[in-house]
Structures are given as C-alpha cells and as structure tokens.
C-alpha cells in the first residue's frame, strides 16, 4: 500500500468527525420499503363461512324454517316474497328463530357485494345462510 493511500484510509478514524457513510444504509432501507409496499396487502382478509355441506341434508330436511331472500336486479329485495328495505330486512332476520335457514337468491346482474351484505346480516343474526343461483326462478 502506498503511503498516500494508507494516509487516506487512516484519516477518517483520526478525525473527530468520523462517520459511517449513510448511502448504503439508505439504499437498503429503500429496497426494503419498496419490497414491503409491493408485497403487503393493507386490507386484511376475513372469511365468511358458507355452509354448503351436502351430507347435512338437503334444505327440505332441515328442522328449522327455510326462508328465501330474493335480490332483485333493480336494487329491491324480497323476504319470502315480501318487499323490504335493508334495515327492515336486518330487523326481520334478527327476529327469526336461531335454527332458521336462509337462502340468498340473487337475480341476474346482481353483484356479489349485495349478496354478501345479506349473508353478513344473517351472520350477525346468527342464522345459517347459503348463496344459491336457482335457474328458472327469480
């Protein structure tokens, strides 16, 4: 090693202002930041348990009452054929016995978020609900 080079190397440690270069640290932090921005999902997923078991019997053999919520394409909804709004439906579902069963039957063109809204109401009311697509009905 030449004298000049060794002096250059030695100088920082002798200096009272010796500091580690921040640039590599910033590089690593930036790469970590970009990794976490791309790889992480900010909204946590939650599951709704849909009872689809075929060995628990067809709906006709279930002991509790079977109710049908029809979601209409124009935004309306029917509980067993009776037109209701969302608040009334939530109240009616809450007043149903706990062994009741609910079938959510969306019309063509109804988006999943509306059906999930009704399944969510049923979940809050403690009623088992399933989502069907009966051909020829609704």
């Amino acid at each position, binding site marked *: 090693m030449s004298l000049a080079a060794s002096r250059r190397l030695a100088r920082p440690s002798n200096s009272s202002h010796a500091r580690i270069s*921040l640039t590599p640290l910033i590089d690593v932090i930036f790469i970590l930041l970009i990794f976490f921005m791309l790889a992480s999902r900010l909204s946590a997923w*939650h599951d709704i348990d849909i009872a689809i078991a075929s060995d628990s019997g067809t709906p006709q053999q279930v002991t509790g009452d079977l109710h049908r919520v029809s979601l209409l394409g124009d935004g309306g909804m029917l509980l067993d054929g009776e037109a209701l709004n969302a608040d009334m439906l939530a109240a009616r579902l809450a007043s149903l016995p706990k062994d009741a069963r609910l079938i959510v039957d*969306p019309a063509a063109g*109804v988006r999943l978020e509306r059906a999930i809204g009704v399944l969510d109401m049923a979940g809050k009311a403690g009623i088992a609900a399933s989502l069907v697509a009966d051909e020829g009905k609704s």
Partner: protein
Amino acid sequence: MKLTRRRRLAETESVVPLINIVFLLLIFFMVAGELAAPTPFPLDPPKSSSDLASEKREAELFVSEDGKLSFNGADVTEETLADALGAIPPEQVRVAADGKAEARLIGRLLAGLREAGVKRAFLVTVKN
C-alpha cells in the same frame, strides 16, 4: 479547509430527514400491511363485518370482476372446475371473489363445489 468541511457536513445532514421519512414509511408498511401471496388478477373483495381471519385452506378459487376463474393457480372455466377439483376433492375451499363479480356465478360455483364433494367454502371479504 474549514470551508470545505462545513459544506460536507451540510450535505450529509440534508439527507437525514429523507432517511427519517423513508424509515417511517418502511415501518408503516411493515406494521400495517400483511404479507400476502399475489392473486392471479387484481381483486377487490366485498365488505363484511366478519371477524373470522382468512387463512389458507386446502384449495383456493379466485373469481375476477369479469368472471374469470383461477383454481390453485391454474386458469379454469365453470365447466372445467369439476375436473380441476379431481377425484378426491378438498374438504375446504377458500373462494376469493371480487365484490363486483356476478352473485349468481358465485352461487353456481358454490353449487358446483358442493356437487363435487366439498364440505365447506369460505368467501373472502374485507372488514368494513
């Protein structure tokens, strides 16, 4: 000599607030986000008040806004889903569908899963 040193010091210090911000952003994304496997297409699940944290099940079915299906990473259609499920169907399937997907399609898919022998399905939602 004195002048040069002062300028070098100032250059270093001007970077420190930047590092601070980047560091805060890094910590925010580490804490607020959860590491997730990528979905085959952009997915915006519907909202619900479910408290059941989503977890990976034996099989996973994705449904996009325009009705495209992906089962365990492979593109399928409504007709080929039963073949993709195989002779020994999984007991539990997680169905991650876009909130804008057609509800009747999900209903048909759930019926298809039931006919194939799947016992339980879990619909993915986000907390509202």
